[in-house]
């Protein structure tokens, strides 16, 4: 990488060879107007707003696509350029319906901002008034082609970041239009994953999110808070726009990062919806078939007495959410494990987390991190999906898989008990019965590491042979393990063995990616997840349940609640069937009212921030447990919980990982 020197608008500017003129200008704080350009997407130079004059060239060059060269003399602000840019804007305005007074994006529109910036006080060209379609078939997105300037940002984000490639361009000239699949309506599209990335990057009012329009322009919002999405273990970075105390808009903020600022359907729609749901704001106590409001004092008194009685009989239990922050999990660990010495403590979907915990344990003991950051999927030449449904479990990883397959040309194999989540994209697709999964993975391991022939009675092994050959050939395969896959710890261990055998080694650990749904699953594994399952078998007198109410509770946990004699439910929403199980309801701050950290499968500890201040009737977890333990007459022994990144960090390079005989598990 050589340093290059340019003169832009008379200023000496430094850049790196390979930079475009625009990149050098931006590095040196020189503003060049852009419209179709968006950082992180391939520049296409189609809008021609960024045209610049370069000495020695008699043509105007688009700054976003022209490579900067050493010694270039560039002018970005001449009268000629200003007039050209204004002319482009006038042509865009004349082309379609760009009347601001009836557009929901007025004030948030990049086209409008640029036109004002260029003093466009009238349009010199006749308007076309061509009536394009307004596609309102999607549940959340609206696509009014009359507002479109054909910048192609949506097409590029959909293809390059989401890997869905739902959108493209049809026809030419005045009739050119954004098209969904092969001419379907957006709502009928089979490839669209409804992530809303297209709407986030749209510079005009063409693709809009119904949930956000007229809730407040970005500029009118009172506060913009950086936080993360708590809906899965990837912990995508988000930006929450707050207006008059409510969440007006949520956007992905990591534009230059691995995910390119995308969110999935969960983050995009569930997060804003979660601020509109019916909240639990005061403690309540069951009275017959309904609840009555109670004071904190009364509710905690009742909870403490029931809990104490149950503890004396060793019949107290606790189920907490994997969406709790590190800080909250530490409190749970201190109270339930260290102070009350409870046997029956677990997390929702505990069986899956236990499978990963036990399956990974032998490798963690070796000092190896048995998994890698999820975005490393994009570095792999072969992705093996092991009974996972990434689009459902950790959706942005599905984008990584698609991008790696469609754009990077990586291979994709699917080995599952159910269906193929990446139809039409997989090179090999194998169906295995749940009972046979261990044998299949073992056979693959033996084939890859020892060259043993695949011999599985009752199974057509031709596809498996193909997969084994692909694994032998691959330089950096990645194994994506689904929740279903982890129900058996020995299968997880065997799959990690397979990763080691096929040389799946990354800088931060072995090339395994666990699809854990809950945001802080890794920290939960580190704290509250017990070694043995008890849900459904243990006889529980009093059960404490902490749920954020954001994702539905798993049936097993709900069953345990229904089978315990007394239930203390600590949650944020009046969410059913959870609250139906309660004898005492304790209100909790919602995700947007809390702060803390999540240990993400991206390998980063990310921070959740308070977006909206909680109501005064709510209390934090620490205060509640101080009071509860005081009423129970016990003193808290706080635990010294190691942050999970320490627990899971490698002390030896992943390349030194040794295979483990499954009998050891």
């Amino acid at each position, binding site marked *: 990488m050589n340093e290059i020197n340019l003169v832009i608008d008379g200023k000496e500017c430094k850049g790196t060879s390979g930079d475009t003129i625009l990149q050098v200008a931006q590095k040196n704080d020189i503003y060049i107007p852009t419209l179709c350009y968006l950082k992180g997407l391939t520049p296409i130079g189609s809008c021609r707003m960024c045209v610049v004059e370069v000495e020695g060239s008699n043509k105007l060059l688009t700054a976003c696509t022209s490579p900067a060269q050493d010694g270039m003399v560039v002018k970005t602000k001449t009268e000629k350029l200003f007039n050209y840019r204004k002319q482009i804007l006038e042509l865009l*305005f004349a082309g379609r*319906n760009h*009347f*601001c*007074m*009836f*557009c929901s994006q*007025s*004030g948030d529109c990049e086209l*409008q901002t640029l*036109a*004002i*910036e260029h*003093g466009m*006080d*009238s*349009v010199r060209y*006749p*308007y076309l*008034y061509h*009536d394009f379609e307004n596609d309102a078939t999607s549940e959340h997105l609206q696509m009014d082609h*009359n507002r479109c300037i054909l910048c192609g940002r949506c097409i590029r984000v959909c293809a390059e970041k989401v890997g869905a490639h739902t959108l493209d361009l049809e026809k030419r000239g005045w009739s050119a239009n954004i098209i969904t699949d092969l001419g379907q309506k957006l709502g009928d599209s089979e490839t669209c994953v409804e992530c809303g990335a297209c709407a986030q990057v749209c510079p005009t009012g063409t693709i809009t999110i119904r949930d956000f329009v007229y809730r407040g322009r970005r500029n009118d919002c009172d506060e913009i808070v950086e936080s993360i999405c708590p809906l899965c273990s990837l912990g995508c970075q988000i930006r929450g726009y707050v207006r008059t105390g409510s969440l007006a808009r949520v956007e992905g903020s990591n534009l230059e990062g691995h995910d390119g600022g995308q969110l999935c359907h969960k983050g995009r729609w569930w997060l804003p919806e979660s601020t509109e749901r019916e909240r639990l704001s005061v403690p309540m106590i069951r009275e017959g078939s309904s609840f009555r409001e109670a004071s904190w004092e009364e509710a905690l008194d009742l909870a403490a007495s029931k809990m104490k009685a149950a503890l004396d009989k060793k019949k107290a239990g606790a189920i907490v959410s994997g969406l709790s922050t590190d800080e909250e999990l530490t409190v749970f660990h201190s109270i339930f494990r260290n102070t009350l010495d409870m046997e029956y403590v677990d997390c929702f979907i505990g069986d899956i987390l236990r499978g990963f915990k036990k399956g990974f344990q032998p490798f963690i003991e070796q000092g190896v991190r048995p998994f890698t950051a999820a975005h490393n999927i994009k570095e792999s030449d072969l992705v093996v999906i092991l009974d996972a449904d990434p689009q459902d479990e950790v959706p942005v990883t599905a984008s990584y898989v698609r991008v790696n397959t469609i754009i990077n040309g990586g291979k994709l194999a699917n080995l599952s008990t159910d269906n193929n989540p990446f139809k039409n994209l997989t090179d090999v697709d194998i169906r295995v019965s749940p009972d046979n999964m261990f044998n299949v993975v073992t056979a693959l391991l033996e084939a890859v590491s020892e060259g043993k022939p695949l011999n599985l009675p009752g199974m057509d092994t031709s596809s498996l042979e193909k997969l084994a050959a692909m694994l032998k050939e691959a330089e950096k395969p990645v194994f994506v393990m689904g929740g279903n896959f982890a129900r058996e710890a020995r299968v997880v261990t065997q799959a990690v063995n397979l990763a080691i055998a096929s040389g799946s080694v990354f800088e931060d650990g072995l090339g395994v990616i666990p699809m854990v749904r809950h945001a802080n699953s890794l920290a939960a594994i580190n704290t509250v997840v017990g070694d043995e399952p008890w849900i459904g078998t243990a006889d529980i007198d009093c059960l404490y349940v902490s749920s954020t109410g954001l994702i539905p509770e798993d049936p097993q946990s709900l069953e345990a609640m229904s089978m315990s004699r007394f239930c203390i439910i600590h949650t944020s929403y009046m969410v059913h069937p959870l609250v139906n199980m309660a004898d005492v309801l304790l209100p909790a701050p919602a995700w947007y009212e809390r702060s803390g950290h999540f240990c993400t499968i991206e390998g980063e500890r990310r921070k959740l921030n308070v977006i909206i201040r909680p109501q005064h009737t709510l209390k934090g977890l620490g205060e509640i447990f101080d009071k509860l333990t005081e009423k129970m007459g016990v003193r808290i022994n706080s635990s010294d919980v190691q942050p999970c990144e320490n627990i899971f960090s490698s002390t030896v390079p992943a390349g030194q990982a040794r295979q483990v005989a499954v009998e050891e598990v």
Partner: protein
Amino acid sequence: MSFLDIDEKIVDLLEQVDLTSTPITDIKEIPEVEVGVIEGALGNEEEVHIARKMREKCKILIAWGDCAVFGGINCLRNFMDRDKVLEEAYTNTVSTVNPEGVIPGGDELPALLPHAIPVDYEVKVDVYVPGCPPDPEAILYVFQEILQGRIPKVPVDMMRYD
């Protein structure tokens, strides 16, 4: 109405300006004046006629507001053809009671143009003041400049389209 957005400053302005004709004074003939202000897009033949007359009689002609400048909300109808617009407006709208389906027209009424158009499609405009409504500062600025003998252009920080 948007003139009132300049609040008490309208008093100072009126002291320096002689308002000869406004819609309130029920204009029959347009007199010769220094400055004429047109708001609204041109939608029918009468409006085109008035715009031409005003161009004749005014030294400086101002297109006032988004509709006069760009066509604005009137242009919603431009995505349909004229007959369809009339049919929709006079027979199909929910609030219309018109059992015989009469669509007004004939020689007594000015004919609707095929499209609603910005003022400068028909006559030369000297000053454009976009905005729906224009920014109050822009309103004041434009008249102060004209009073100083200059032909103003709305500055970027006072320009808006909504």
